[in-house]
């Protein structure tokens, strides 16, 4: 990554993610089980899926950045800074201080606003548009949830499936590792990891990943132990299929529904953890957690500055709620234990 600028990298990642999503959709459409599950999910949880899609869209718009094209009269950004689409929409809307939603005067200073009535959710103490900040938070939240899951789930699968399938010494080692990590209180371990590794975005994601892979590792190990004994695996082994191929072709596809369910349910927990970390001063820059933490004391001002925390709080709440509802729906559709007749 040396020599590569951050915004170029971000654009590349966005493209890779979009291509990945396209491939995923193609796979889902090809297989009947997944196609039906997707249809069922869409029928049951339309609104929540649309909401999650909106957040994804905002995050994508905020991930595509390029340089140049900044008008001469905008003074509050560097002329050669890479700006995202969202940045460009809100270019030049910075005021000097607080303004209430739709207000036309500044709060601490009598000067009229440069753009009266255009601040949908008001501005914060530095005069930044709150709506803009809340939109920017979407990318950070999805990054925390997504990146961490991309670290945690493959790790858990590697260890869980490996331990469950091959057994022996490796299984003993993995089981010991899981019990050790599971016997440390989650938040404390998380804090210890971040304190030790430093406080940048990547180490927060790694720390969240390390603390959240354990549960899924245990689950995938138990499930692999069950699958290993089934007839189709024995048949494959009798036919002389190499072990690695058995794992990839016969074990992993049968864990796919668990992966999807875990990913969605893990996501909301991760984003909520980040809020607590932000308050402890070890969170990720630009997240809703930091907005909430920053706006905390402004509730004690007179007049009360409530719109800041309300915007960040509701943006967070709506995303988590939508993801939780979609997650519940996915579990209902995919988990055989949740089918009709049983709870």
């Amino acid at each position, binding site marked *: 990554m040396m020599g590569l600028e951050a915004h170029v990298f971000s654009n590349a990642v966005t493209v890779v993610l979009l291509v990945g999503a396209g491939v995923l959709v193609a796979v889902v459409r090809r297989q009947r089980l997944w196609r039906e599950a997707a249809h069922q999910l869409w029928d049951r949880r339309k609104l929540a899926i649309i909401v999650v899609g909106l957040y994804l869209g905002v995050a994508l718009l905020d991930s595509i950045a390029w340089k140049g094209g900044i008008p001469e009269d905008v003074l509050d950004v560097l002329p050669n800074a890479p700006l995202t689409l969202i940045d460009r929409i809100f270019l030049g809307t910075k005021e000097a201080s607080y303004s209430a939603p739709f207000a036309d005067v500044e709060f601490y200073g009598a000067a009229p606003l440069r753009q009266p009535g255009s601040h949908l959710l008001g501005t914060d103490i530095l005069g930044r548009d709150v709506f803009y900040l809340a939109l920017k938070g979407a990318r950070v939240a999805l990054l925390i949830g997504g990146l961490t899951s991309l670290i945690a789930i493959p790790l858990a699968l590697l260890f869980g499936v490996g331990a469950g399938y091959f057994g022996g010494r490796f299984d003993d080692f993995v089981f*010991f*590792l899981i*019990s*050790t*990590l599971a*016997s*440390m*209180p989650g*938040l*404390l*371990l998380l*804090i*210890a*990891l971040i*304190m*030790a*590794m430093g406080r940048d975005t990547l180490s927060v994601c790694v720390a969240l990943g390390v603390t959240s892979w354990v549960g899924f590792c245990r689950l995938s190990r138990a499930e692999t132990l069950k699958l290993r004994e089934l007839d189709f695996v024995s048949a494959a082994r009798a036919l002389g299929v190499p072990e690695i191929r058995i794992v990839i072709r016969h074990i992993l596809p049968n864990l796919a529904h668990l992966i999807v369910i875990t990913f969605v349910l893990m996501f*909301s927990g991760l984003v*909520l953890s980040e*809020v*607590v970390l932000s*308050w*402890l*001063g*070890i969170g990720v820059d630009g997240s809703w*957690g930091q907005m*909430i*933490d920053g706006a*905390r004391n402004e*509730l*004690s001002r007179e007049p009360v500055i409530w719109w800041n*925390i309300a915007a960040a*709080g509701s943006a*967070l*709440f709506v995303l*988590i*709620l939508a993801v*939780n*509802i979609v997650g*519940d729906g996915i579990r209902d559709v995919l988990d055989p234990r949740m089918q009709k007749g*049983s*709870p």
Partner: protein
Amino acid sequence: MGAYVIRRLLYGVGVVLGVLFLLFILFFTVTKPDDIARRALGEKAPPEVIEQWKVNHGYDRDLWPWQDWNDNLLFDHYRRMLTFDFGLSDADDSPIMDRIKAGMGPSLALTVPLLVFGLLLAIPLSLLVAFFRETYIDRMGVFLCVLAMSVSMLLYIIGAQFLIGKILRWYPISGFDPSLLMLPRFLAMPIMVGLIGGVGGDVRFYRTVFLEESSRDFVRTARAKGASESRIMTRHILRNALIPILTNVVLAIPFLFTGALLLEAFFGIPGLGSITVDAIAANDFSTLRTMVFIGSLLLIVGQIVTDLCYGLVDPRVRLE
């Protein structure tokens, strides 16, 4: 049973040693004693002051036992943690043990009522929801649970402090007074917030437990005998669901001691959670690793107790 107890205990000891090793890796090798000293003394501290500080805090040795078997940080770390000799805080040189003793009482004063009221609130609610399973009430209840779970604890706390403390002025916004007369005044709001923040997840969990029990054969038998639905609910389902509920409660007990991090810090309760939060703010590594160790130790003991209880009740567990 004897062999099972010994095996389980030995495994517990192994896990404790594993936790200590992980803590050593995190707090001695990833963050080196020099870094800790510099964070405590400032970036511009002269080398001799740093050396003196390291001597005072016992950091002036080799990390690994390769050079000197008796005098190294790894074994010293194990020896001190296992004998509960936690030493001095990295931030203000006060003995850590004294702070823990002082923080235990306030923490328990908050967390014990929280656990008890939480159970008293969550179990009847989840029984009610499970009783009306697959009806409008059930779906509404589950939705409310998801709704309550989707709000960050931070927002609950800030909201309560703003609404109850500042606007309505029912209770003080934060503070603590150990006298019995004043205690409820200060604890009422944190307990309320804790209950609201936790009840959603609890009700959903207990509902699943109850529904799992209600699809068992003995429930169908009871229904076939003509037992009333409320009798089935309390006599057959609740009774049998007590085992998973008990597990959940035993595993929650260690967290009574480590305290509620957020609640204590926000409401100014000088418990163990507050100590941890202060340690983070002050880069106080020795206090932090002690808190992590104590929390882990209690959790391991809790897990062993649950497993032994299971072994006592269910012979199949012992054979695995």
